[in-house]
Every structure is written in C-alpha cells, then in structure tokens.
C-alpha cells in the first residue's frame, strides 16, 4: 500500500468528472497524479440509488519513474500538496493558522494505537489502520481517518451512528491530549461514513431540485453536525439555493431555501 503518499478521493456522477474535479481541487495537471478508479458508478438495483463514480488521485512524488516503486512520502511530496492546499486556502476567508501536517507518521501511529486500545478493551477484534484524507474542503485541517475493518461490526456503528460517534469523540479527546494539539479525527467502520456521505450528497441535490421546482423551502430530517456539514458543503456552490440550519441539537436540521 502507498497510503503514506498524498491522495485524494473524489466522488462525482462520472469517472471523468471525478478526475476533472480532483485535478482542479489539487491544482495539478493529470500527468502529476496516479489515477485509481475505485468505483465506476452506475445504476443501482432496480434503477434506484444510482451509484456515483469514485476515484482516488495520488500525487506522484518527483522521484517516481514510470514503473518504479512508489517512494514513501518525501518532503518534496508533502510540499507539493501544501502548495496546492494553500492556494485553495487563499480563496477562503477563514484561514486556519495551523498548516496541515502531512507525512507526520507520529500522529497516525497515535491515532491508530488509541483506537486499537479502546477496541481491545471493548473486546472487539478488528483491523485498524490510519491515514490522512486530503480533501477539497480547505476550511479545516487535513483529517486523519482511522478505518476499522472486521467481521460483522455493525454494532460499532449503532443507531444513527451513535456508537461510532462516541468512539470517534472519545478517541479524538485522547489523541488530542496525547499529542498536544487538536487533530480532525474521523473514525470509520467498514466504509460506513463514505457510504453515508454519498447518500447525504444525493439527498442534498435532490432537495435542492425540489426546492427550486416547488419554490418552497425543504426541511431535512434532524442530523448531527458532521452530517449537516456535508449537506451545506454539497450545496455551497449551487447558486439556485441557500442552506441554513435551524433548531437545537439533537433536533437541529438543514433547510434548503430556493433563491
């Protein structure tokens, strides 16, 4: 695995659009990245739930020759990414003081160890890995994602991801305390969050269409903050709607307002 290198996962209606979007986000030409198609997308069963295409772009390190073994993260590799991120950052009003820490294996090790330790104490047997998740969302630091994989772990997700969120919250408190700064941590079980994110993005777009076609504001079900955020981000660049959260947690919900 080359999970130490900078990579970006993008989801879009088609493979081509996903690649396009990813290259745009990274601000890099096509020849500077390796493209891996994770999911070509396509029609779901019974014509329902069309799947989006999913691709992973990995920034080639400068020393990479065609056919050569991928080299581990070099300083140059990290810098390339930082530059692209910073260029995007400059467009945002909210600048983060802390630059993303890429290639900082210590943070990944701590994150993985803390989650493993918690699972072990819960008598859960599972594989735990940690990686950085570069995103196009430049408002936050580069998240660290800890993936938990194993047999039949749905009880680790719980109703409305309650257990998964508890695990993520406790893990992030412990990790932050241990390394002395705040890390944006995502804990995932069997790809649940990615699946949920796809669902939410589709829902967001559907609600936007409905808002426009009916001329009425659409109110979504109550969601936790991380899920509301996905909806806001998905519709951020859509000029025909505005989004707004109303109510108080845990009943806070997103509304989509036609413009």
């Amino acid at each position, binding site marked *: 695995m080359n999970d130490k290198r900078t990579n970006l996962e993008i989801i879009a209606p088609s493979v081509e659009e996903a690649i396009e979007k990813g290259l745009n986000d990274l601000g890099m030409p096509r020849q500077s990245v390796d493209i891996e198609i994770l999911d070509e997308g396509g029609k779901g069963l019974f014509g329902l739930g069309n799947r989006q295409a999913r691709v992973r772009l990995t920034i080639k390190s400068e020393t990479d020759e065609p056919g050569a073994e991928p080299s581990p993260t070099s300083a140059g590799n990290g810098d390339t990414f930082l530059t692209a991120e910073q260029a995007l950052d400059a467009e945002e009003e909210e600048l983060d003081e802390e630059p993303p820490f890429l290639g900082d294996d210590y943070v990944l090790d701590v994150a993985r160890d803390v989650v493993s330790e918690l699972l072990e104490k*819960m008598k859960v047997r599972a594989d735990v890995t940690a990686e950085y998740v570069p995103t196009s969302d430049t408002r936050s630091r580069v998240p660290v994602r800890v993936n938990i994989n194993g047999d039949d772990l749905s009880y680790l997700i719980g109703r409305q991801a309650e257990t998964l969120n508890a695990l993520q919250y406790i893990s992030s408190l412990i990790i932050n305390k241990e390394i002395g700064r705040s890390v944006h941590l995502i804990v995932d079980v069997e790809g649940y969050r990615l699946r949920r994110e796809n669902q939410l993005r589709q829902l967001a777009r559907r609600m936007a269409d409905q808002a426009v076609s009916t001329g009425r504001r659409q109110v979504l079900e109550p969601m936790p903050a991380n899920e509301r955020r996905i909806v806001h981000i998905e519709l951020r660049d859509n000029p025909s709607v505005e989004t707004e959260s109303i109510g108080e947690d845990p009943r806070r919900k997103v509304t989509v307002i036609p413009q």
Partner: protein
Amino acid sequence: MQDLIEYIALSLVDDPLQVRVSQYRRGSNVEIRLQVAKEDMGRVIGKRGRVANSMRNLLRVAAAREGQRASLDIMEPK
C-alpha cells in the same frame, strides 16, 4: 469493562493518581464507579455530559459483548 473506563479516564485526566475505578455486581447489572480529582470532573463529564455519555455508550457495547448490562456512575471526590 472496568478496563475500558479506566483507560479512558487515565487518558483524559490531568491527575491520574486520583483515578479510582471500581466494579459492583447487582443482579444482571454491572455497576462501574469512576472517581477522579475534583479538577478533572469536567474532563470526564464534558459539556452537557458529552464525554460521560460517550463513555456510557462504549461501555454498553463492551458489556453486550459479554452478554451483560453495565452502568457508569461518576462520583464526586470525598
């Protein structure tokens, strides 16, 4: 189960020497008591009880793994 709460508490407090975790059995329920230094109470309870509730959630799963039920009480230091 006791292990889980002890690990979390020890990782979050500033004063680990004052962390005490004990476990009592009441019928089919296992009662876990956590005691920490007064200054650390906020760290194990959290805003609107978020840390305590997250610990309870994980504890519930850990207990269910062993076919049991468990509850967590966070005690004020004497």
